[in-house]
């Protein structure tokens, strides 16, 4: 059979940057990054949402060209993955029950599929659409909590699934941007960006024992909590580093660009290390030098970040998920390069937190991608390669049939679903 190249394209339209990666996956699941294009969003994206379609599309097409040039291969139109985010994204945990009537009381794959289907019947409002769905865990006879229930003996099987959904129109915007630069309608598979980052960052061990990934970007913060290879909680807090910059700019009467620079260059840390208690700012208008207490800066940062992490903690508490976090936390996105964020994250949750750096064995000439800023796009590639790999391998498998037959969701998401189901190694 003709050996097809498996080219995957990952697109992230973020608040700070619009980024496209083109990668190739081989049969063993290894990834090679072939092309990379990136440009600042220039205000076209605010708080994770595209606010100026024309500008965004212009940048996106430029970035696509750039990536294409460096990759030097054709983009596979079936394998384009877009990260979606936005304050409208939410989730629900669906539970579906099936009574096992088999002669030997063994749970069969059909039973599992039936339970998953039952779990999914919860209707979502017509203006919402499902982005991704995963199975969280299975309960046998209401007591035994398992990851793979097949061939276990039980009389009742409950499937708990995690469904991420968002505003239909807002989510469609991301696909629209792609259509506007010449792709077909419906091309481009949607992946919630926290899910994508999870694929890039959460190690196998952490997946199993429970970890919380917080992805704090420029305009928005996403989080996902994974335990025993299934997500238990995920969501979005509409606060990002831009809010922090805004706070600093308002609180200390600085220009927003000065405030952004302060966060990016991490002034606080440097000044602290030098043992200083004040820093000097030259006012742009009058040229006068102003001395600002380091404490003021610290206070603003502490208050804002603590509030944000406390909100995430509250959300997890609702789901009773705090007890399942034995591997601690991971911080990714732009905030991972800002040490106070790590410290505050750690102190709010009282567990160890590590910086999320995608250290995948991603080969290729592009080595500068090993930064928390790229965890979402790299995760998208990873997700994409798993989805295509699984799709080909599992053609005709019971999972695949289920996905196609029952739901009208686009098939790759389903593949993604089944991939998580088989707990493919990250």
């Amino acid at each position, binding site marked *: 059979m003709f050996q097809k190249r498996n080219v995957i394209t990952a697109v992230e339209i973020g608040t700070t940057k619009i980024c496209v990666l083109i990668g190739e996956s081989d049969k063993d699941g290894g990834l090679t990054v072939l092309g990379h294009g990136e440009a600042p969003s220039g205000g076209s994206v605010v708080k994770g949402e595209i606010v100026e379609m024309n500008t965004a599309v212009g940048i996106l097409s430029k970035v696509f060209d750039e990536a294409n040039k460096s990759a030097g291969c054709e983009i596979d139109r079936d394998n384009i993955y877009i990260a979606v985010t936005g304050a409208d994204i939410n989730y629900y945990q669906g539970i579906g029950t099936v009574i096992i009537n088999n002669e030997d009381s063994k749970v069969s794959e059909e039973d599992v599929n039936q339970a998953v289907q039952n779990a999914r019947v919860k209707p979502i409002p017509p203006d919402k659409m499902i982005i991704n769905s995963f199975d969280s865990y299975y309960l046998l006879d209401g007591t035994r909590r398992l990851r793979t229930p097949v061939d276990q003996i039980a009389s009742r099987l409950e499937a708990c699934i995690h469904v991420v959904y968002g505003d239909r129109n807002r989510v469609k915007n991301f696909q629209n941007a792609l259509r506007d630069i010449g792709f077909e309608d419906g091309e481009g598979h949607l992946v919630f960006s926290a899910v994508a980052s999870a694929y890039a960052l959460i190690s196998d061990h952490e997946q199993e024992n429970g970890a919380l990934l917080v992805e704090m970007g420029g305009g928005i913060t996403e989080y996902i909590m994974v335990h025993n290879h299934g997500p238990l909680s995920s969501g979005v807090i509409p606060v990002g580093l831009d809010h922090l910059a*805004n706070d600093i700019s308002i609180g200390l009467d600085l220009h927003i660009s000065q405030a952004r620079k302060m966060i990016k260059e991490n002034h606080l840390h440097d000044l602290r290390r030098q043992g200083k208690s004040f820093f000097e700012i030259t006012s742009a208008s009058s040229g006068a030098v*102003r001395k600002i207490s380091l404490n*003021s800066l610290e206070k603003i940062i502490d208050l804002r970040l603590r509030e944000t992490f406390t909100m995430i903690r509250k959300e997890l508490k609702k789901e009773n998920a705090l007890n399942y976090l034995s591997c601690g936390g991971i911080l990714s996105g732009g905030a991972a390069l800002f040490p106070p964020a790590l410290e505050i994250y750690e102190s709010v949750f009282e567990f160890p937190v590590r910086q999320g750096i995608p250290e995948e064995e991603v080969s290729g000439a592009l080595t500068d991608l090993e930064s928390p800023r790229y965890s979402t796009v790299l995760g998208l590639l990873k997700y994409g390669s798993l989805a295509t790999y699984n799709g080909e391998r599992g053609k005709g498998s019971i999972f695949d049939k289920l996905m196609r037959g029952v739901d009208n969701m686009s098939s790759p998401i389903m593949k993604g679903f089944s991939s998580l189901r088989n707990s493919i190694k990250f």
Partner: protein
Amino acid sequence: MDTMENISDLASKITVLGIGSSGVKIAERLFHMPEMLGLEIIGMDTDANSLGKSSLANKTAIDSEWRGGYGCGGDVIKGQRSFSRERARIRSIIESASLLIVTGGLGGGTVTGGAPIIASEARACKKPVIFVLSIPFVFEGYNKNKLAEDGIKELLPMADILICVPNDLLFSSLSADAPVEEAFRKADEEISRAILGISELVRCGNLLSTDFSDLRSVLARRKSTCGVGVGLASDYDGLNRCHMALERVLSSPLLGGPGKIKNAHALFISVTGGSDLQIGEVKKALESVQSLARKNARMIIGANTDDAYNGKIQITLITVNFEDVASDDVEEFVSEKTFVQESAITASSSSAPEPPLSSEYEQQELPLLQISRGIFLNSSPSMYDGLDLDIPTFQRLNLVVDKGD
């Protein structure tokens, strides 16, 4: 082996830092107490003038180059700034101590502005700090109390342990014709006694031990008010010195009467004596306090001997009332209240119920800060739980930030 020695060495050094004029006064009083041997006492104030009058051995006028030795005049920002400028000095004090007890009177500029900075510095050094702060008398005015209240709000998430003692509790045991000077002196003395008691509580107990983590587990990050009672009795008080000490605890002005023990959610009791401390005395002291307390109140008890207390016994009692009581505690409260009310009704059924104090005369708080959304002015608001997250957190919490000059 080496590290063990280091640890025990560290555990013994407790530093008391009195800030602001009232803090210096408390420190001074503490300095003249015979039991302060284990403590290092430092006074710190922005007002060089009042500091000069103090007889403390170790005192510093902070930020004198900038402030010129004048006080803050009730300006929190000025206090904040002064302490920020003296970070290096504060850090060296914190680093040299194993435990720092900071004391002072909230409501003024120096303490209200400075305490959070000490807290943040201590957190950076990873050293424990206990704040023992007095809340001003209500008659000192709305402004001062508001300042104190805001100060607590700011300090609460930063401080390990915050013990707030309302000065108004003094009225519970002072008669109205007591001289003003005595009232203030009494307040200072009680707080300095309380500090002694806390340091005794924390110091490695050799009989029944309580330590810093006990205090922390009860008090950390919860809004609470505390009453502190300390009773000291010596052999000269007669044979039954334990009884005398207990009695003095209960009549201690900052405790607010035995009723406070009944209502407390948590209690710290420590008994300190010399080598002649008897087990019967410890037993009696602890039992009698427990008999006064609620059944489900959390008790942390400690007993200690110290040669400085030979012939004496000191009982320290800290009552803690949480402001955000968990639901099961509330139920307990309600049932108790109805019981009391019923008996009150039967006793005086004819008297009409007094109308509850309504807040209708209370003036609405004026918004001092302008709420601004900055760069997010033109975007749809990020609402979460009814809050507009685009507005800076410090503005939503109504906190003041020093913009510098």
